[in-house]
């Protein structure tokens, strides 16, 4: 199967790492640091004795170093970008390009993982794990249906019984009928 071509025209293709995106990440860190520095004010003054520097000293020290290192990083990025003649302003091009096969697989992998995590409270691990293993492997390109079915069922069961029955770690049971199924399965051994 080709990794290029057959895509969907909804999202912009990922650009290669650029200085402007690098700057964007640093700015996010700076905003994070400023926001939490402000929030830290709410527990300022909590201390076990008059000599204790208080509950804010450690988080504030970390946040202030983030601020200083972040500003320094911005300066360095700007300097390096100027040396290489790159733009530091993010491109606002609205050009819509085709998603490659790999990007489509990547987004599907993320979506299936999110669905798997969400399903734990309702469906439980015992039922959802084989389905996830099947769907995830299929989505990222495995096509031998017989092997995939056997792999998904056997792996899901082995992991469930290994953790539940051997090392006594209860993986999520889910709720309603799924919970009944999981408990029934756990009691099989």
């Amino acid at each position: 199967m080709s990794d290029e071509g057959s895509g969907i025209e909804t999202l912009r293709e990922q650009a290669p790492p650029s200085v402007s995106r690098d700057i964007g990440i640093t700015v996010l860190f700076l905003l994070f640091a400023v926001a939490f520095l402000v929030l830290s004010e709410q527990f300022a003054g909590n201390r076990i004795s008059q000599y204790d520097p208080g509950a804010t000293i450690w988080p504030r020290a970390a946040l202030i170093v983030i601020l200083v290192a972040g500003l320094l990083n911005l300066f360095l990025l700007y300097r390096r970008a100027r040396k290489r003649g790159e733009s530091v302003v993010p491109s606002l091009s609205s050009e819509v390009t085709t998603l490659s096969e790999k990007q489509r697989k990547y987004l599907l992998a993320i979506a299936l993982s999110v669905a798997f995590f969400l399903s734990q409270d309702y469906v439980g691990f015992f039922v959802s794990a084989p389905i996830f293993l099947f769907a995830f492997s299929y989505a990222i390109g495995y096509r031998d249906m017989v092997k995939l079915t056997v792999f998904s069922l056997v792996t899901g069961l082995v992991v469930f019984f290994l953790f539940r029955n051997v090392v006594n770690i209860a993986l999520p049971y889910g709720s309603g009928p799924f919970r009944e199924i999981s408990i029934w399965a756990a009691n099989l051994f």
Partner: protein
Amino acid sequence: MVVDTVASGAVPLVIQDLIAGFGNVLTPFNMFLFAIGITLGMMSGAIPGLNGTMTVVLMVPITYAMAPDSGIMMLAVIYAAAVYAGSISAILFKVPGAPEAIMTTLDGYPMNQNGQLREAISTAVFASAFGGIVGTLILIFFSPLLAEFAIQLSDPEFFAVILLGLALVSTIGAGNITKATMMMCFGLFLGVFGFDPLTGVPRFTFESNYLASGIDFIPVILGVFAFSEVLKQIQSGGSLIGGGGEGGGSDLSQATSGSMFPPLSYFKRFGRILGVNSVMGTIIGVLPGAGATTGALFGYTFGQRLVPKSVREKFGSGVPEGVAAPETANNAAASGAFVPLLTLGIPGSATTAVILAAFILHGIRPGPSLIDQQGPLVYTIFAALLLANVAILLLNKPVVKLFLQVRHIPRELLLSLIVIFTVVGAFATRNIMADLWTMFIFGVAAYYLEKYNYSVAPMVIGLVLGPLAEPSLRRSLTKAGGDWMVFFQRPVSAVMITLAVLTFFIPLIMDSTQFGDRIREQFGLTELEQ
């Protein structure tokens, strides 16, 4: 012959006791338990979601039916084997099987990707066994001395040691020190969520029960190392095991057909690392609360300082020194953690805290008189630890052969299997669903951060060391009446803090000033960064 010499009293008492300890371990029943301990330890170390501490916890009730020396020996063997085995999955799949193997992923996995799987695994095994054996020998011969040293260390020294460790982290981001510093402080900050360790005041919890219990580092490491790698592999279409996929390197059969030792040329390269890190790792293990994970973090950064600059610049890209350094230190630290346990009754790590519970369960209270009163028990543990490290070396080939069978599994199935193990691993520690989301968020974030050279290793180190540093800092100041000079009035902490300041600021100045640019250009480092 040996028996005669022993009987004649020509051999020091310690050796006599040790020989008696070996005799006790080598009885059929104890050998059976020893084999179980090695197997369980390796399994728990290699499978994400399980770890040595958890397995020791599970086995404590079983030891109740055994004699104390048999039961506690088995627990000690599980611990030693688990610390080693975490490196296998770290090297093969970038999934640290146990927290102690976090740093091994940094160079072990790239070595695998570069087609040097056999070299990576044999280096990890040899370094683990070397560190473990040296650590145990130090434990046997210097326990009382080290215990005295540990008693004299107080909060200022402990804080200074951690500060030095944090400063050394800047070397992980060679060429991107500002980013490494940001990431490290971000990790330190993540460690403050939850209740303040001294006052109990909730910090940044936003009335969430999950945040109140703090951000656990296991979901974070599974996310940033394992889940992000799965995403990367899907995007790049690469292969988890070098040589097994597109653009792979060497023939994988080498991994099981070669010697159990690393190539001879490697010994010249990391000889100093083995020597220094096995001693330093043991000393870190002696510090109460530090343990093998902290030992690995320090070991990696020490390793960077012990190699020539040309090698230091390549740390993180797959150099054997980067595997040997943490593996030597974490196994040495695992042995070192027994020093305060056996001599002071203070556990040096989470696992030794559980082993302390096993002692108490058997009606034994570890402390200064333990070696005198329970000599056979203590020397049985020492002998078992030594044998466990030798067994690790001998079992290397069959164990790795077993693990390498996974290369026959198609890449897509392997990736989905890794996601399942990251999910189970993230959930199993605290049985909290939100830990899955933590793993996921950090995994996706790490994927993008690493694209822009924001190394995630300093963040993990910050998250591990932060909760150890803050209480030490504040207790130091509280006891000193708020006087910051307390850190400079004690020689050990003064030296450590000075070293920390120099270690941190010199590379930072080099990285961010025109003077640094000139130096880098002179030594041809600019090309390396680009």
